[in-house]
C-alpha cells in the first residue's frame, strides 16, 4: 500500500535556509542544497522549499539554489512562496520543481489554480492554506499568516480542489511553532471534505506527534515539519522506525 510521507520543509531567504517560529524571528540553519541532500539520504520522502524572499535579487538566488538541488536530489520537490501567476509556475518548474504550491497568490487570483492545473496537470498544483480559528471558525489567512482574509477555510479548500488543486497543505497557525502536536481537529475537518491528498503542517514537536497524527486521522497522507528536523531534534529514519513499529506504512 501507499506509504505515509514525511516531508521536511525549508524556508529559503536570499538563498539560505531560515525557519520562523509563529512566522517571526528567523534563525539561519544551513545551506538549502546541503540540507536537501542530507534529508534525501536520510529518509525524507519529499522536500518543500518555500521562497520567502521579497527582492528580485533574492529570487534569482532562490532559482539557482533550486536548480542545484534538483540536479543532486532525486526525490519530489515542491516549491512555494511568491507564486502569483503562470510565469512563476514556469520559472520554478524549469529549475526542477515537480509541484508548485500556491497560497496568497491563489487568494488574490483564484483562477490561477484552474489555469495552472489545466496547463501542468492537477498533480502539479498544491494548494497551501494557512488557517487560524477566528471566533471558533476555521479562517484563511494570507501573506504568511499576517492578513485575515475572512474566507471560510473549508469552503476555500473545497473550491480549490474543484478548480484542480491536486494536494492540500493544511498549515494551522494556531499550532505552528508551538510544538504541541498537529492540529487534529482542523485536519479531520479538512479530510472530511476532500478526496485529494492532505498534508499536515504546523505543530510537530516530537516523533510521537506524527504517530498520533497518522493513527488518529488515517486519511492524512503526509506530515510536514521544519525546525524539529533542521535542529536534529527528530531524525527521520528514527521517526520512520517508530512509524513501522506502530503499524503505519512507511518507506524505510
Amino acid at each position, binding site marked *: *500500500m501507499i506509504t505515509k510521507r514525511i516531508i521536511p520543509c525549508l524556508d529559503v531567504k536570499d538563498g539560505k535556509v531560515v525557519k520562523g517560529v509563529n512566522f517571526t524571528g528567523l534563525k539561519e540553519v544551513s545551506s538549502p542544497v546541503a540540507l536537501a541532500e542530507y534529508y534525501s539520504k536520510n529518509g525524507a520522502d519529499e522536500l518543500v522549499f518555500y521562497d520567502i524572499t521579497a527582492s528580485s535579487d533574492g529570487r534569482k538566488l532562490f532559482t539557482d539554489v533550486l536548480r542545484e538541488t534538483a540536479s543532486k536530489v532525486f*526525490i*519530489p520537490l515542491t516549491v512555494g512562496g511568491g507564486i502569483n501567476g503562470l510565469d512563476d509556475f514556469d520559472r520554478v518548474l524549469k529549475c526542477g520543481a515537480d509541484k508548485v504550491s500556491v497560497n496568497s497568490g491563489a487568494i488574490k487570483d483564484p483562477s490561477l489554480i484552474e489555469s495552472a492545473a489545466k496547463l501542468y496537470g492537477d498533480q502539479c498544483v498544491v494548494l497551501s492554506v494557512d488557517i487560524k480559528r477566528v471566533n471558533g471558525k476555521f479562517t484563511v489567512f494570507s501573506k504568511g499568516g499576517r492578513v485575515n482574509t475572512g474566507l471560510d477555510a473549508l469552503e476555500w479548500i473545497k473550491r480549490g480542489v474543484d478548480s484542480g488543486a491536486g494536494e492540500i497543505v493544511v498549515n494551522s497557525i494556531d499550532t505552528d511553532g508551538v510544538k504541541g502536536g498537529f492540529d487534529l481537529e482542523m485536519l479531520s475537518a479538512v479530510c472530511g471534505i476532500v478526496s485529494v491528498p492532505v498534508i499536515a503542517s504546523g505543530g510537530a514537536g516530537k516523533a510521537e506527534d506524527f504517530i498520533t497524527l497518522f493513527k488518529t486521522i488515517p486519511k492524512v497522507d503526509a506530515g510536514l515539519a521544519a525546525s524539529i528536523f533542521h535542529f536534529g531534534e527528530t531524525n527521520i529514519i528514527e521517526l520512520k522506525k517508530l512509524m513501522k513499529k506502530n503499524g503505519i506504512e512507511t518507506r524505510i
Partner: protein
Amino acid sequence: MTVIVDYGVGNLFSLLCSFHAVGENAVVSSDAEEILKAERIVLPGVGAFSDAALKLSKSGLDRAVVTAAKNKVPLLGICLGMQLLFDESYEYGVHKGLGLIRGKVTAIDDMGGRLKIPHIGWNALKIKDSPLFKYIKDGDHVYFVHSFAATGCFKSVIATTEYGATITAAVGENNVYGCQFHPEKSGEVGLKILKAFSELKKEK
C-alpha cells in the same frame, strides 16, 4: 549515449540530471536523426494522454521512436511515456498509442470512493526477474503520480504495486520497457533502475 525525447511535454531537467548522476551521458533531443542514432531512448511524459499523443505525432518523433524500437534499441517509457507505448488509452475518450506493447490504459478503480485518485506517493514494488531490476530488490519503494494504469498486458508485466487492487508498475518486452512510476524521483532505488537501463545494449 541515451537520448531523452523532447516533444514538448513536461520538464526534462530532473530526468537529465538523474542519468548524469548514474554516470550516463544523456542528452535531451527533439531531433529525429539523433533519436535514430541513439544507443538508448527514453520517452518521458506528464499530463493528459491525448495531448501528449498529439504532440508526439505532430512532432513526427513518434515514427523515430517506433523505428528505433523495432530496430531493437532499448527504449524506456516513463509515466505517461510508458502509457504511450500501449495500443490505446481510455483517458477521456479512446486514443491511439504507439502500439509497441499489447494492452490498454484505463482509469484506476477508486473502489467506490475509498481510494484517493491520483495514486500519489511512495509504494512498494513486487518485481519479476528483469534486466531493469538487477540492482533493486522486491519490496523496494518508488514514487508514483498517476490516475490511469496499464491493463490487459499480463505477459509484459515485470512489476506491480498494490493500491486497492494490483496495478501495473512496469512492463518489459524484448527491448521495450516502461515504468509507471518516476525513477528520476525515486531516490536511490530509482537511480539503480536508470543505471541498469543505461547498461542495456541494442540487440544484434
